[in-house]
């Protein structure tokens, strides 16, 4: 199986490759459009700022490449946000694979617990609705680091609650995305990556 990790100007993408290696899967970090097009699985990771990253994707024509992919694609963290329709971070139109909009967390005054931004640490996921997950993953903890979130909508595949319920995962057709970092989420995250690798052909 060929797994492509899309290479672009986005922080520590090596950790996804290493997590796959621990599962016995060799992935290739690449920006080669032909390789990405014919890979069996594509992972679109990302840590960074939305508007500058979108500008980079457009400049390198990775935007049209990603939206045209037919094989299972997994966006991670900023990858999820860029697959949405719009992000408040830099007020930018994104890839539009998911109709959801990305907004900034605003701590609500008077909330019982102090709420910090970024949402950083381990939080539980629920209402799982995708073949990315299995029943054993309901209410399990995964690792998040983000200040922006995709609101819950039609494509929400997992819900997390922090300040407001938001999309911890999204799915539409062959496009999957997680706001959390499966590559840093211990055995639970490994299981989710494994489920992605083992998805049945659609």
């Amino acid at each position, binding site marked *: 199986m060929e797994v492509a990790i899309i290479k672009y100007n986005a*922080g*520590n993408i*090596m*950790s996804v490759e*290493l*997590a796959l*290696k*621990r599962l016995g899967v060799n992935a290739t970090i690449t920006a080669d459009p032909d390789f990405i097009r014919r890979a069996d699985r594509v992972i679109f990771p990302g*840590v*960074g700022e939305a508007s500058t990253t979108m500008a980079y994707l457009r400049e390198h024509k990775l935007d049209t490449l990603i939206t045209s992919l037919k094989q299972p694609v997994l966006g991670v963290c900023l990858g999820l946000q860029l697959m949405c329709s719009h992000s408040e971070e830099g007020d930018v139109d994104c890839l539009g694979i998911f109709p959801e909009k990305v907004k900034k967390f605003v*701590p609500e005054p008077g909330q019982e617990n*102090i709420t*910090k*931004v*970024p*949402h*950083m*640490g*381990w*939080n*539980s996921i629920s209402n799982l609705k995708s073949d990315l997950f299995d029943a054993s993953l309901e209410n399990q*903890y995964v*690792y998040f*680091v983000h200040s922006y979130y995709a609101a819950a909508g039609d494509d929400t595949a997992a819900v997390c*609650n*922090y300040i407001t319920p938001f999309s911890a995962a999204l799915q539409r057709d062959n496009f999957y995305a997680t706001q959390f*970092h499966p*590559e*840093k*989420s*211990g*055995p639970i*995250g*490994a299981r989710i990556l494994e489920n992605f690798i083992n998805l049945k052909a659609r």
Partner: protein
Amino acid sequence: MLAKRIIPCLDIKDGQTVKGVNFVNIQNVGDPVELGALYAEQGADELVFLDITATHEGRKTFVDLVKRIAREINIPFTVGGGISELEDADKLLAAGADKISINSSAVRNPSLIDDLAKNFGNQFVVVAIDARKTPDHWAVTVNGGRIETDKELFSWAKEAESRGAGEILFTSMNHDGTKNGFANEELAQLSESLSIPIIASGGAGNMEHFVDVFTKGKADAGLAASIFHFREIAIPDLKAYLRQQGIVVR
């Protein structure tokens, strides 16, 4: 709900864990990767590896070690010690570190925080502060508490946040090593005045201290070293106890 984090801290010298680790069941007790993996398996939420080597050779060993940690550990990890410029951080990021922790170098050159945050993102930058209570205020210290500076804890923490720190790791030098509990009053004040997560360090001696640091101290994470290394507290027991006390943990 967001879980409170338990973070074991490993001091590394020339690629080996120091502080006399006494896990009888691991073969090479000095190997930080093995010990880190064991903590991860036991439910640690994150790991901190601090390089306390001073030599150039030891430094290279540390970067190699970070590569091994990144390959084998599947939870987030922070590395610190000896980071004084962008290039140091870049090497550690390339080796696979999720976050870096800076302390004395940030006090001496505060704009390092801005540079690191701009280049690698706020989430990458942990600013560690060692402070000691003096008659007037909480004085920020450097060089492992040996040198007192004219900076004050609360204003320095606020400045670090505004410069782009993603988290504050506060160690009270008055509490560190005492095993009498964390500096809860100061931690609560930090937590309420800042909007980034606070990692509490210094003073953990028993499981009740962790309950206090999360309730009274309002900390987001509790860090400790010797109580885990000397097996005074096992992480699974600590988590079970916290859960029993109504604290959300993973």
